[in-house]
């Protein structure tokens, strides 16, 4: 599989370790580099994988262009659309073949339930010779040929009847109920998330203690044209910036905020903040952090739906603490 290198760490882990144990090889590419996608294709490539909005890099994928390259080579494009949600972006409309969501995030919207969604366009030709597992008679299902028998529903029938059955990643009924609850307010929440995110990103963009605000929705972002095309309603609400003063300043900042919840989750109605260098990426040295796309002072914000003024006030508490402890401004 050819994958964007700018992905959520948990996904990277799965690809590097779990898929490796299953003998799936990964080629990592800079998602912004279309030539790199093309050059990475080999005879045994099965799929392309990317995120609509990268975590935490904040890069936006040129969906149509990458989908075109994939299709030129009879490959499906898989897109993790968690950060955008269907409200902000529908990758299938731009050529994606399979779209994934961690419903745990925005779809549920309240950080209460773990779950996922797989959406398939029904348009990809799984019988093109590269996907015997889907197209050939299935030994685990009395010799049924899923794609031929079920047509546009073939891939999903296979996914449910075999993969889901065998791996057991079944959604709990109560979680399903909670996701339905969350979905009722998705459009309302996303509008507010995006509004708040822009206000906060703008605030940080001119802040003396914040650098490299990686929010694609900012006027000066290099991803502006892609945002205008693929995310006209807003560039999501999760982004990161670097606090001046490195790791220590990051730690002090986190101790200073009281309204933003210190959690590794994203997409919650509550605003969430995390300093990867002292938590999720604590065991990495500077080199390794850099390779993971994280700096010692990187702070990731998942902007919630509270009042923007309250959120900014609380961020200032964090900055004040970092300043007071003397580490910031260095």
């Amino acid at each position, binding site marked *: 599989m050819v994958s964007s290198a700018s992905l959520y760490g948990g996904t990277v882990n799965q690809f590097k370790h779990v898929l490796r144990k299953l003998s799936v090889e990964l080629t990592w590419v800079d998602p912004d580099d279309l030539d790199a996608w093309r050059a990475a294709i080999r005879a045994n490539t099965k799929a392309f994988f990317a995120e609509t909005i990268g975590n935490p890099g904040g890069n936006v994928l040129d969906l149509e262009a990458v989908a075109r390259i994939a299709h030129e080579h009879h490959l499906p494009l898989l897109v993790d659309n968690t950060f955008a949600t269907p409200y902000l972006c529908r990758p299938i409309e731009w050529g994606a073949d399979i779209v994934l969501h961690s419903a745990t995030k925005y779809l549920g919207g309240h950080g209460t339930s773990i779950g996922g969604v797989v959406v398939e366009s029904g348009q990809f030709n799984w019988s093109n010779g590269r996907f015997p597992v889907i197209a050939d008679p299935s030994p685990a299902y*009395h*010799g*049924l040929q899923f794609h031929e*028998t*079920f*047509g546009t*529903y073939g891939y*999903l029938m296979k996914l*449910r009847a075999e993969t889901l059955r065998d791996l057991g990643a079944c959604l709990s009924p109560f979680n399903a109920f909670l996701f339905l609850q969350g979905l009722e307010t998705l459009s309302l929440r996303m509008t507010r998330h995006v509004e708040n995110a822009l206000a906060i990103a703008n605030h940080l963009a001119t802040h003396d203690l914040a650098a490299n605000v990686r929010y694609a929705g900012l006027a000066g972002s290099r991803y502006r044209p892609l945002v205008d095309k693929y995310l006209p309603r807003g560039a999501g609400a999760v982004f990161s910036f670097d606090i001046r003063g490195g790791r220590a300043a990051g730690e002090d900042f986190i101790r200073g905020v009281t309204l933003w919840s210190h959690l590794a989750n994203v997409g919650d109605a509550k605003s969430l903040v995390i300093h990867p260098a002292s938590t999720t990426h604590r065991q990495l040295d500077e080199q390794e952090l850099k390779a993971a796309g994280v700096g010692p002072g990187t702070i990731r914000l998942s902007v919630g739906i509270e009042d923007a003024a309250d959120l900014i006030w609380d961020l200032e508490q964090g900055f004040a603490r970092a300043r007071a402890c003397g580490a910031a401004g260095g």
Partner: protein
Amino acid sequence: MMQRILLDSKTVAIVGLSGNPLRASHFVGFYLQRHGYRVIPVNPREAEILGERSYPSLRDVPVAIDVVNVFRTPDALPGIAEEAVERRAKCLWCQFNVVNEAGARIATQAGLTVIMDRCIKVEHARFVGRMHWLGFNTQRITSVRGMLQ
């Protein structure tokens, strides 16, 4: 229109119904039976399918037929359409890829409703059944559950 046919019909003759449980026609026959329809197999190669006697052609079916559901090659459609007209069926329902304009015309001119390139099981599940339970996009956005709208 499809909803009306599905809700008003009682007897479906499935032309080309297979006795092999892995074939799509068999899934469809089983599903229709399970949902209260009387399924009449029309397949000269079988004697009995799904507990019902199989007839070699539509002409041999002894009861009234509401829907003629076709799982044959498109070239066979004109002949089947003529028989459907003779049997005074109300609808000629042709499955995926069973498209033939000449056959359709024969049936339409005689007053039958003709549906082509649609699966009767999928449409039933979409409107009346539980397609949404399987996570498929029903393409229906409605708060009304499984009733004629």
